[in-house]
């Protein structure tokens, strides 16, 4: 049974309605063919792409872009690797022309070891890009104040990290992520980065996050196509579980089988 059978549950990002809540990265796949099959298996409707240098005459960029267009998915260009507001803004402007979309996954990296977002630069860049007509998807931390300022800068979607990019550590700070979800109940929140396993994705969805973006966990799996399918199922299961309203955890046991009517219940325990 798919989500469609459980009542309408589409995701809306900047006015675009999506049925899939799994966004997929396109990097690090063993081959273009496996990338194509994995995106199909993930049922992703949005994929992330980037801009990079290329030698004249190579045409690798043109081939990659043709492949993505054939998939019929919406692209979310990123500013991956940018270390300053200026770099990020210029990269976003270049991406808008090439990919012909106002969407931009805004990354301003502030620290090398963790690739942690520079939230100060992020807010400044988001403000500039929003004024230029971009629809900004900021890659941020779980910081509530940074989130508030990003929304104030015009962001209608936030992409908090689960854990550092490519680490596969899952949700490092569940308490803060739950706080973020509770603080912004109506802002689409997409967990981006650090997801290493389908169970991490399901946990994020059970927490009430609106979607998950996964790249490395799928691309670097032994079988990326099968892993893409696993992620699609995990995201769907987590979402349905969230909508079904999870039970409250308890500290003590509570018997699930009825106690009344238990045989030998009237005998004193030895």
């Amino acid at each position: 049974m798919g989500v469609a059978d459980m009542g309408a549950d589409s995701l809306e990002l900047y006015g675009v309605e999506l049925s899939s809540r799994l966004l997929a990265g396109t990097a690090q796949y063993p081959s273009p063919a496996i990338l194509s099959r994995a995106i199909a298996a993930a049922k992703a409707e949005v994929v992330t792409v980037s801009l990079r240098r290329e030698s004249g005459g190579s045409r690798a960029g043109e081939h990659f872009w043709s492949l993505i267009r054939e998939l019929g998915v919406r692209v979310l260009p990123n500013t991956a690797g940018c270390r300053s507001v200026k770099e990020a803004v210029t990269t976003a402007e270049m991406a808008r022309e090439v990919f012909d979309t106002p969407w931009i996954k805004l990354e301003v990296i502030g620290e090398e070891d963790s690739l942690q977002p520079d939230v100060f630069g992020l807010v400044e860049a988001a403000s500039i890009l929003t004024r230029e007509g971009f629809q900004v998807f900021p890659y941020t931390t779980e910081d509530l104040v940074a989130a508030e300022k990003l929304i104030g800068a015009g962001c209608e979607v936030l992409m908090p990290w689960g854990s550092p990019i490519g680490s596969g550590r899952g949700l490092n700070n569940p308490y803060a992520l739950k706080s973020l979800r509770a603080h912004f109940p109506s802002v689409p929140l997409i967990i981006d980065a650090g997801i290493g396993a389908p169970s991490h994705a399901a946990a994020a969805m059970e927490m009430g996050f609106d979607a998950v973006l996964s790249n490395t966990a799928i691309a670097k799996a032994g079988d990326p196509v099968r892993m893409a399918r696993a992620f699609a199922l995990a995201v769907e299961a987590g979402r349905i579980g969230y909508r079904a309203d999870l039970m409250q955890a308890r500290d003590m046991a509570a018997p699930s089988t009825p106690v009344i009517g238990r045989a030998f219940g009237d005998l004193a325990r030895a």
Partner: protein
Amino acid sequence: MHIHVNGKALEVAAPTLGALLRELDYDDGAIATALNQNFVRKTDRSKTPLKEGDAVEILVPRQGG
């Protein structure tokens, strides 16, 4: 004229950014350009002059996360 293209030092004859792309064998497809960290629109390349010491970035679509 000595300039930097994608981080590499080059000696080029092209007087404009548009001419540079032709000189370096880029076709007119999916590329984006910047001059000294400022975005240059496709429609502005042929009227964007180059000068000694300029830094040009020529970027193309690539895989991303």
